[in-house]
C-alpha cells in the first residue's frame, strides 16, 4: 500500500527512514478512519466552498510571461526549450 502510494507520488524514501515513514503513514490513515463512522448517505460531496459561478474574463489574447524569462529559471534549457534527460531508451 505504501509502496503503491510512493510510486504514484514519484517519491523514494531512503531505507533508514522507511520504517518510521511506514509507521507514521499507517497511524495517520488509522486516524482518518474516524470518518467512516459517519453515515454520509444523502450528502453531496462538497468539492469547493465557492458558492457562485466562476467569473470569466474576455477571451482574447494578451501578453503573457516571456519565453526567455521562463527559460532563465529552468534547471536546464536548450535552443529555446526545456531540456530533460533522454527519454527514449531511458524508461524503467
Amino acid at each position, binding site marked *: 500500500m505504501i509502496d*503503491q502510494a510512493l510510486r504514484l*507520488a*514519484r517519491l523514494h524514501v531512503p531505507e533508514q527512514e522507511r520504517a518510521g515513514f511506514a509507521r507514521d503513514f499507517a497511524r495517520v490513515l488509522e486516524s*482518518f478512519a*474516524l*470518518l467512516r463512522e459517519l453515515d454520509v448517505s444523502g450528502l453531496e*460531496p462538497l468539492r469547493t466552498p465557492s*458558492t457562485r459561478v*466562476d467569473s470569466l474574463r474576455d477571451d482574447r489574447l494578451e501578453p503573457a510571461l516571456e519565453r526567455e524569462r521562463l527559460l532563465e529559471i529552468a*534547471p536546464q534549457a536548450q535552443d529555446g526549450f526545456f531540456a530533460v534527460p533522454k527519454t527514449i531508451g531511458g524508461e524503467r
Partner: protein
Amino acid sequence: MSRATLEQALARAAALDRQLGAFASIEAQLALEIAAEHERSGRGSAELGGTTFAVKANLCWRGVETHAASAVLAGYRAPYSATAVGRALAAGATPVGVANMDEFGFGSSGENSALGPTRNPWDPRRSPGGSSSGAAAAVAAGLVDFALGSDTGGSVRQPAALCGVSGFKPSYGRVSRYGLIAFASSLDCVGVLAREVELIERALGAISGEDAHDSTALAQPPLAALAPRSLRGLRIGAPREHFEAGVDPRVAACVRAALAHCEREGAVVREVELPHTRYAVPCYYVVASAEASSNLARYDGVRYGARVDGDGTLQGMIEATRSRGFGPEARRRVALGSFVLSSGYYEAWYVHALKVRRAIARDFERAFESVDVLVGPTSPTLAFELGARTQDPLAMYAADVLTTPASLAGLPALSTPCGLVREGDVDLPVGMQWIGPTGADALVLACGAAWQRASEHHRATPPLHAAGVAS
C-alpha cells in the same frame, strides 16, 4: 515614509531577526527602492502608504527568491508578483522581506521549514505556530506593520493567536490566489496579519476583488458596507464543541472571560452546537493532502526550482528531485494524498471526506440561523515548545482542530488577542476566533475592530520587540 525611518526599521528588523528567524530574507535594498518610488509616484499617500509588510515565502514577489521554505524551490526567483503582493504595492505599502513558513504550508509550528524554525517573540524556546510562522512573529515583534500570509486550514489564524496578534482568513474567493504557490486549491486563502484589525481591514480592502488571473476570485461588496461599529445587539454563538476535549482549560477560561466582556458591551451570547467538529481534522487532512498531491506534481525538476539528476533517466531525475527536494512532512502529505485518490480508494476515502465536509458546512449554516457570528478559541493550546510535536504528526495535526472547520466551509474567520496566560516564567497570548457566514468578511472584521476598541489585549507586546532594540 522617510528613507531614514525605513533604514532604521530595516536595521532593527535585521538585528532582532537574528534571534527570531522570522525572515527567509530581508530585502533591504529593494525595500528602499520601492519606498523611494512610492514617494515619487504619490503612492506613498495611498491607503497603505507609510506601512511596511512581510511577504510569506509562498507568495510570488517578482525578482525575489520565492521558495515556500522548500528545498525543491531553492533559487527560484519569481518571474511575476502575486496579485495580492502587487495590489499591496500599488496601495503604497513597502515590502521588507520574505517571511519564513512551514514548507508549502504543511505544518502548524513553523518547524517544517528548509530554513530552520522561527521562534516565538513571547518565548524563543517556543513555536510561533504555523504555517505563517515568520509572518506572525514579524508582526508580533514589531518588525513590520502587517504581513501577507496564506491560510489553508488555520495557517494565518493559529500563528496569530500564538504570537498575540490579529490574523484574518477571508471568505474563499475574496482574494485572488494568483501567484500563491498552491497547496490545496479548494481551501487556500490569502490572509492578512497585523496588530490592529483596522489595518487588516485596510490591507484586505486593497488586495481583494476580481482578478483576470483567478476565476475563483469574485467581485465583492466594499468591506465597510453593513459593518456595525459596536458589539451592542450582536448575537454571538459560542460553539460548545470548541470549548471541549483537547482545549487547554486556561485557554477556554480566557475566551469565556472575553465573551463575558462582549456581553458587558451589549452582545448577546448563547451556546450553539457544531456537532461534526470532531471530524474536521481527519476530513481536512484527507481533502488537503489529496489536493496537495495533485498540486505538487508540478515539482519535477523540468521547468523551475532545483533538479537532482538521479540515475540519469527522466523518471529517475523526477523521483530524485522530488525525494531530495521535499521535506519529511511534504513527502508524507503527497504520499497520503496519492493514496486517497488512487484507484480503489478514491470513493471510500476522498469522496467520503467530501461528504463529511458537506456535513461540517451544514453545521455552520444551521448555527447562523440563530446567531450573527461564532466565537471560540483559535488554538486549543498555548504556544508549545519547539520540538515538542515534531516526532508525532497526529499531535501536530491536532493543533488545527478549531481552525479547519471554517476552512472546509470557506468561511471568513479572524483571530484576535484576548489575554495572556502565565506559564512558568513567561506570559503567553491567547486568541479568540470570530467566524462569520460566507461573504460576511466585513461583519467579522467589524466585530474584531469593535472588540479592540473595547479591550486592551492587542496592545500587549512580547519581550522580543523592535521597540527595545537600539538602531
